């Protein structure tokens, strides 16, 4: 027998809560954002257009930052170093909709899965997120981020049921 309080029931039903070990989504892919120059404070680094993630046929259901301890080298060409925790704690990821309105933003460091005891960050946006409108911004750069670095995101998504 499993007891469910009305509050937990409500949070589940409204999509505000999920079991931590539950289904993340149908598909997952890694997205890399290399830097063409040393990162600057206040600059918006937009995600590259992605035919899958931009599509209204897919919704993003979870996101994770892969840091340099999770995987030491990103498989970009040329190879780059994923952000360290010290670098990640200087920036934010902004989720934006079709009108470029910011729906949510989260510090990069809290998206690193290993720092959350293996728990991925679930997402469920009523307003569809347009991937190429999402961006990363740094508000301090005491630990420099150079062209040797890239941001490695693992994005999970599911087809939208029409």
């Amino acid at each position: 027998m499993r007891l469910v309080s009305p509050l937990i029931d409500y949070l589940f039903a409204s999509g505000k809560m999920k079991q931590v070990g539950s289904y993340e989504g149908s598909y997952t892919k890694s997205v890399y954002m290399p830097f063409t120059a040393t990162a600057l404070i206040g600059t918006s680094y937009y995600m590259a257009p992605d035919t899958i993630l931009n599509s209204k046929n897919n919704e993003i259901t979870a996101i994770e930052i892969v840091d340099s301890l999770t995987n030491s080298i990103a498989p970009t060409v040329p190879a780059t170093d994923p952000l360290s925790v010290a670098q990640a704690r200087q920036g934010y990821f902004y989720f934006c909709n079709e009108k470029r309105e910011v729906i949510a933003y989260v510090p990069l460091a809290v998206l690193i899965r290993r720092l959350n005891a293996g728990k991925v960050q679930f997402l469920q946006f009523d307003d569809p997120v347009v991937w190429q409108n999402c961006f990363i911004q740094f508000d301090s750069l005491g630990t420099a981020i150079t062209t040797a670095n890239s941001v490695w995101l693992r994005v999970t998504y599911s087809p939208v049921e029409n």
Partner: protein
Amino acid sequence: MNNLVIKRSQQIEFRLTGSIATGKRYFATDIPNLSRNNVVVYGIEFFTSAQETTTPTGNTVTSVSTGTVVTLRDNKKQEFMYQVPQYTLIRANNAGLIVLLKPRIINLTDCYVQLTNTTSITLGESVAANIYYDLVD
């Protein structure tokens, strides 16, 4: 075990201005789109400089959480979350779980933090947090 799903989120901050003193209330700074009793908060997460060094408004984030308590007030001025240690609201201290709240309309600028210990706290720093919310219909 359950964890929170982000539907909408935004950073809030409690700027430590005036003087640094224990017991003094440092209120949340005004964010126009969140300060009209128009958001129903269902989760909250606090940060120190271990998670973010600077807030999006350019203020340095406090480096310690063990001397700060947090109070949230709803739109009826009820302190529904009263003097909760900031430390317990940091995700990394809770095995990655974000603290869930019974969904409530908050009065953002009525919410405040208090210091119980001023060690390693500097004037002008901010206590930073993210709220997870839905808009009021």
